[in-house]
């Protein structure tokens, strides 16, 4: 946590723990998750369903319902302020204004009984005093920014009159309404077709360079990560297993889980050979194995893995991995690069 005082760090999640409780069963959704997002950076949280990536995003917006949720530990610092200590009013001011979110389902996240114009307008007037023609102008400009053709006419449309891709663009326009410093996108392209996904990913890239905002992008799709990320955090069963720059994660993965994921991606080039597959299934958050949560599925596992929870270890250059076995066995062969130069700036 050496970077707490660093001015360029916009969001810093530190040792966040979230539980969901139902009767006697406690589902440990997040166990000491730490990550940070810097100014103007795209950070990807990648993991399979149930790994806690969406929960961590909801926690940033103070949207974890309590009960059944509870946050027994950790801090979420946004511009130096701990979000977990804010009152509901202060959170209201934060949401939409400084941090905005784009959801997966473009069908259900827009209200079907209001026009597009009214919904974008509301996103603006929730935080700023803008009225009449000026409000209309701002809405049109936002729609133009997200690449919707003839935006003035679209303002009067209802959500059902738009296609899936256009609805997702409207959602992005609403998120951008108050020029937030951080946009959290939770699987925004999962429900879309590939050609539309490409368009939306390109839109995120242009918007980010144009507006200088940071993007926390949550996805399960490694191919999308490879397209959009600057830095990547790989999550498994409520912990971060590996983190680093995109290049490090894809070309020199140091955690067996990341290696397994990358190796199990199907591609035409692998035709004819069996795909690598990770055996078993993701553990139930209420019944996680002891020690390293990945050890029952891990081909590298040794006895120690089932006994003690692994520490985050440095592979150099801001590339961290939670697997002592891989690191100690491969350090001799020198596949791990040594620390070199400043962090993160060269991607």
């Amino acid at each position, binding site marked *: 946590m050496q970077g707490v005082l660093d001015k360029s760090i916009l969001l810093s999640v530190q040792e966040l723990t979230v539980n969901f409780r139902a009767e006697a069963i406690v589902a440990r959704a997040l166990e000491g998750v730490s990550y940070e997002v810097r100014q103007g950076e795209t950070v990807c949280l990648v993991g*399979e*369903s149930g790994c806690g990536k969406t929960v961590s995003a909801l926690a940033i917006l103070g949207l974890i319902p309590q009960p059944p949720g509870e946050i027994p530990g950790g801090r979420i610092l946004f511009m130096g302020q701990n979000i977990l200590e804010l009152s509901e009013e202060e959170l209201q001011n934060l949401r939409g204004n400084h941090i905005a979110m784009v959801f997966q389902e473009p069908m259900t996240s827009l209200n079907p009984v209001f026009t597009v114009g009214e919904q974008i307008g509301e996103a603006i007037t929730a935080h700023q005093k803008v009225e009449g023609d000026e409000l209309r102008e701002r809405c049109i400009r936002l729609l133009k920014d997200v690449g919707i053709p003839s935006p003035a006419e679209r303002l009067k449309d209802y959500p059902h009159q738009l*296609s*899936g*891709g*256009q609805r997702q663009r409207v959602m992005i326009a609403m998120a951008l309404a108050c020029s937030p410093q951080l946009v959290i996108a939770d699987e925004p392209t999962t429900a879309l*077709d*590939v*050609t*539309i*996904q*490409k*368009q939306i*990913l390109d839109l995120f890239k242009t918007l980010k360079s144009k507006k200088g905002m940071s993007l926390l992008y949550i996805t*399960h*799709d*490694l*191919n*999308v990560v*490879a*397209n959009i990320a600057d830095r990547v955090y790989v999550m498994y069963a409520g912990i971060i297993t590996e983190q680093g720059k*995109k290049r490090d994660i*894809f070309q020199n993965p140091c955690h067996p889980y990341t290696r*397994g*994921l*990358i190796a*199990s*991606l*199907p*591609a*035409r080039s*692998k*035709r004819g050979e*069996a*795909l*690598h*597959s*990770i*055996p078993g*299934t*993701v553990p139930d958050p209420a019944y996680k194995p002891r020690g390293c949560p990945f050890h029952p*599925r891990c081909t590298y596992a040794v006895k120690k893995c089932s006994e003690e929870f692994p520490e985050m270890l440095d592979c150099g250059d801001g590339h961290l991995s939670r697997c002592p076995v891989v690191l100690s066995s491969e350090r001799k062969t020198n596949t791990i690069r040594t620390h070199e130069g400043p962090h993160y700036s060269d991607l």
Partner: protein
Amino acid sequence: MTTNNIMLRSTGLKKYFPVRRGFLQRVVGWIKAVDGVDFDIEQAKTLGLVGESGCGKSTVGRLILKLLEPDEGKIIYKSKDITHLSQNELTPFRKEMQIIFQDPFGSLNPRMTAGQSVEEGLRAVGMKGRRERKERVRELLQMVGIPASAADRFPHEFSGGQRQRIGIARALSVEPSLIVCDEPVSALDVSIQAQIINLLKELQARLGLGYLFISHDLNVVGYMSDMVAVMYLGHIMEYAPTDELFDHPLHPYTFALLSAVPAANGTPLKQGLELRGEVPSAFNPPPGCKFQARCPLAEDRCRRTEIPFYEINQNHLVRCWKVV
């Protein structure tokens, strides 16, 4: 396209769905879900059917299984025309062709145990003995990697990947030779996806199954298929062996699809062509090429007449006159 071991051939397959409105539900128009589709599936080979949502690829799967009645065209299974067979006459063909589904939550009856679901197929082919059936169910479950002891459990007690395996066991119960795989791995996590793909590949090698592999994911289709057909709004736009299609795509739509697919190594499969706009509705489409509204090469001729298939070489067909 003239090999002897063609298992299933579809020619000019069409399916229009009526759109009904009003108090007495009158027909006001047609959705042309499948609008003239030709392909062959060879013995123990995989035909990948790829396209965006709403292009009619799932409808094709259901048509060749005769779960939907085709409006026009022919389905020939092992040189027998099964297009117009009644449900009773179809019974012997039912066990030849099976289907597995995308959604592991909807594909199993929540009120039946895993064993009972698999047993349904055995009953359907008339396996009489109760103990015989139970024994076969255990074998089938083990074949797909589910412990036989789990046969008495209900679907909600299994994970998504395990449910998908049970669905596969159910399809295998009647010993089919062709399986329609309707997006079988799209709803699964990456690590589980690879398990199911491997299972399908192994089963194909061992049992000599033919697959019609329907998916929107070009990476998966590229891995699974021997031949690929690219569908758009009810038409097959391009039809070629996998490597040919990925290395030398001809149709602008194929090209655009390939350039839209992100790949883990960072570079897309193809670069250059980007599509604007989205898939238009299949409700009363305009005449001419289906792709005209989004095609960067579109000209007058594309808007006037339907474009036929052009045969580039023996196995490569493309529905575009501009690139020939």
